[in-house]
């Protein structure tokens, strides 16, 4: 009887078999992550594991920044202080007016028995670094699950919308910028209330407003604010200012590009806003419509992260 010779060196499957197996595994991972968002636990546990090393890696940069801050000239600090004080004075009048308006709105909404829709308290977060990914525009901030951050929260800075939280880790979370390709925000023109959708162009940090008819009343310099109809962004946040409008009668749609209001590339602190209560901005719907709508909402919730 012929027996197989004993294996002196256990070698396992051949490299080709292994590479086939691991390629299939990687593709399975990608499909699971991209289509079904099924690997959040893997992502979360790996990010917890690597958190100490990541912190260690950002330490030298932070130390340099701290030292630079410490030696910042007295003169510059004084000037900054004076400017900020002037800004506070300017804004305090607006803030008082807003308080009045808010109470009026509260009275009115109490009468119509709908939920509040303006977000007024958020979580301030520090921007840690831009995500190391040459394909997308994301930033990483220092608040995560432990600070009850969740995916979908809008992110603003002092002058407008920065983006949206798209991925939450334990201590950090990723914010996709409004200038990222296919990142869309429902907006309206402040001047005339015209509704539109602002879509990030993905290049040179600008925002496009697609699908606006050539006859639409949009001019250079118009300011787009969030309209709030999506239930994600509270209404009234400044998104972008129109920089150019090209109307060519040969095309159905005008070509409108805008520049983001927020300093999308140079901020240090941002604010993460809670999402408005579900259905906050939606009008009261009829019962049969409501059941259909909730089914649609569920389908959408499945699709979106």
């Amino acid at each position, binding site marked *: 009887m012929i027996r197989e010779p004993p294996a002196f060196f256990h070698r396992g499957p051949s490299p080709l078999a292994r590479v086939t197996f691991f390629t299939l595994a990687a593709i399975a991972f990608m499909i699971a992550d991209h289509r079904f968002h099924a690997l959040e636990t893997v992502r979360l546990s790996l990010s917890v594991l690597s958190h100490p090393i*990541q912190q*260690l890696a950002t330490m030298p940069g932070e130390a340099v920044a701290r030292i630079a801050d410490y030696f910042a000239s007295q003169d510059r600090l004084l000037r900054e202080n004076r400017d900020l004080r002037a800004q506070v004075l300017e804004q305090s009048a607006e803030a008082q007016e807003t308080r009045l308006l808010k109470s009026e709105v509260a009275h009115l909404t109490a009468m119509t028995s709908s939920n509040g829709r303006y977000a007024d308290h958020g979580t301030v977060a520090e921007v840690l670094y831009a995500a190391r990914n040459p394909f997308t525009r994301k930033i990483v901030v220092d608040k995560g699950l432990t600070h009850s951050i969740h995916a979908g929260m809008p992110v603003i800075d002092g002058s407008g919308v920065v983006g949206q939280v798209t991925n939450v880790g334990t201590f950090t979370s990723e914010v996709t910028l409004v200038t990222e390709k296919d990142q869309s925000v429902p907006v309206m023109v402040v001047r005339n209330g015209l509704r539109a959708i602002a879509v990030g162009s993905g290049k040179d940090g600008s925002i496009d407003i697609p699908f606006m008819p050539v006859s639409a009343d949009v001019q250079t310099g118009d300011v787009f604010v969030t309209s709030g109809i999506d239930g994600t962004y509270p209404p009234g946040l400044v998104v972008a200012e129109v920089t150019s409008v090209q109307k060519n009668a040969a095309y159905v749609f005008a070509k409108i590009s805008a520049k983001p209001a927020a300093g999308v590339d140079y901020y240090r602190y941002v604010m993460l806003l809670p999402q408005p209560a579900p259905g906050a901005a939606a009008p009261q719907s009829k019962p049969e419509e409501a059941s259909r709508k909730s089914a649609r909402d569920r389908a959408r919730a499945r699709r979106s992260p």
Partner: protein
Amino acid sequence: MRSADLTPVARDVMKGPASLGLIFFSLVGAYLLAVMPWSGGWLLARPDFVLIVIVFWVLHEPRAIGQGAAFALGLLMDVSDSMLLGQHALAYVVAVFIVQVFRVRILAFGFAEQTLHLLGVTMAASSVTLLLNLLLGSDFPGIAYFVSPALTALVWAPVNWILYSSAVRRRRRGASA
């Protein structure tokens, strides 16, 4: 022809295996370099330290580290670079496969030729990631995208010098003790 000279050509021809600790800490060090806050142009120029260290150990300790470790480290890089899970994993596995196939051939060359071989390996790995992202609808980040794999191949010589000499030093110390 030389007469029979029985002194060994090099002292480390019969080399013992590198310690698992050295492999582990070199990978941790590479990861540490990779997750420094690179951004903008620096990001496009960031050499893939983790890949080059994996390739080093696959070349020199093929029984200690292989495609499984490359896959796991790739997943880790995907998480820390906030990419789709599996992209780096696939790229690393492909790179390690190429290195495994050409291992003996690559080791027969000097540093310059090895760097050229590794340029092919890193380009292949980067092209895998690029193709995947283009398939997923990203824009082409420009020809500057290939600066990173080129620099990855260029850091081969210093990485080799650091890791090889530390591995050999450890062995010599062990031999003299």
